[in-house]
């Protein structure tokens, strides 16, 4: 007797429920780590793009142009295989023969982060440009140091202006993690593919994967929406 849909998706001996949930956990962690790493790159990129020095501005510009222009899957390949080649070469010359590969989760997060950061840089830059210079001056005139200004005034207000657009970038990062299946990370898409292959039920498993992406996206989107609302409250009359 062939197992029914509920058996296939359940947690029984023939069920793929647990692997799929674990894969969803990997997807969420990779997206979250990638996005957070991306905000570090993004803030760095925005700082470069806003720098007074033309050289620094050019570096920032190059970063965002390159990583927004190159197909993401290529970035994933470049980091994963490029990183492995570099590592292998280093270890081989250091007297350790063989081929070494990097952990796909780490390299995948790195790839998602650097691409997400390129998009985030633009968002942080334009959010910063929306700040009221007078309020920053008011802070300085009260004796606030650069760091205090950043922490108490520039940071919170930039975040408030950036948050709506960051929400979109988060959704992209979440979807991009599916590309990490190509470097062997058992995230949602790859796990669905494995299940589809072994049960010959591709439609079912890919549809389930799609539904899970949607649910994760909607749930995290709702959280971000609430944050956005909360931070925008002071600006409402």
């Amino acid at each position, binding site marked *: 007797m062939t197992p029914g849909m509920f058996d296939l998706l359940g947690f029984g001996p023939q069920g793929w429920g647990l692997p799929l949930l674990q894969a969803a956990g990997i997807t969420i962690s990779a997206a979250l780590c990638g996005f957070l790493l991306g905000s570090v790159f993004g803030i760095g990129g925005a700082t470069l793009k806003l720098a007074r020095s033309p050289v620094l501005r050019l570096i920032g510009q190059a970063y965002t142009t390159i990583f927004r222009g190159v197909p993401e899957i290529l970035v994933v390949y470049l980091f994963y295989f490029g990183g492995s080649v570099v590592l292998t070469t280093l270890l081989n010359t250091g007297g350790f023969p063989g081929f070494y590969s990097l952990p796909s989760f780490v390299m995948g997060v790195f790839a998602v982060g650097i691409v997400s950061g390129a998009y985030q840089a633009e968002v942080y830059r334009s959010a910063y440009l929306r700040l009221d210079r007078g309020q920053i001056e008011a802070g300085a*005139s009260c*004796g606030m140091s650069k760091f205090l200004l950043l922490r*108490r005034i520039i940071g919170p*207000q930039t975040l408030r202006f950036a948050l709506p657009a960051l929400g979109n970038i988060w959704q992209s990062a979440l979807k991009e993690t599916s590309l990490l299946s190509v470097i062997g990370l058992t995230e949602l898409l790859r796990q669905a593919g494995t299940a589809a292959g072994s049960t010959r039920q591709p439609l079912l498993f890919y549809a389930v994967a799609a539904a899970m992406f949607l649910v994760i996206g909607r749930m995290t989107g709702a959280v971000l929406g609430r944050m956005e609302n909360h*931070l925008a*409250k*002071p600006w409402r009359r």
Partner: protein
Amino acid sequence: MASVNRSVVAHNTPAVPAISVNDLHKRYGTVEVLKGIDFRAHDGEVVSILGASGSGKSTFLRCLNLLELPSAGRLQIFGEKVNLRPSGSNLRIGDRNQVDRLRTQVAMVFQNFCLWSHMTVLENLMEAPVHVQRRSRGQVRDEAEAMLKRVGLIDRAKAYPAQLSGGQQQRAAIARALVMKPRVLLFDEPTSALDPELVGEVLKVMRDLAAEGRTMLIVTHEMAFARDVSSRIVFLEQGRINAEGLPQELFRGGVSERFDQFIARFNQG
């Protein structure tokens, strides 16, 4: 110096001026906006700084809080020489900590209020005392609330700036300056951004401050206020002090031709 029209011959000079400026210059590129200002303000003085648009009033006031760095000259605040180092043809800050410390002593009130929009009125007031002056939060809160009572905004303590009228925002901004317990208050056209019907409430607060003997430097276009409230008027013209003196004497006319023209033009509207 010789060209300054003075209506007061001498005043009894107390020991240390609150603010003392010697030969202050400010250049933007090749344009010299301040062309050698000599100025002193003593404790308890209310000095109105008048002048046509572009005469350098804001630039001068902002130099006193070091929001603008002078290109040349000396600045002393309560007898303490501000450490400015030559850098090319300009000056730069020599001691960051000194500047940050002095800034809490010389508080600035801006034309556009510049309250921090992500903080409530009360949070705006508490920000610098807690985070810059590192005073205890509880004590600062009490003082901030007392200050809000004073400017008539205690019922708006939890409101955000965007929810206040311009007049309320400016009163909150004045309160924000006051809780730092500054020794000098700088005002740069505090009522210029207000609807006419809101000007009075802000001027009233400023009158009260003047009456209690605060040291205030006020850039303003409110001539009646300047005449009634100031202990001294400084008239800037094209980056220089053209005339200086008691309001009643300057406004009587005949001290400076340029000042008389300025007032005449002003009265024509």
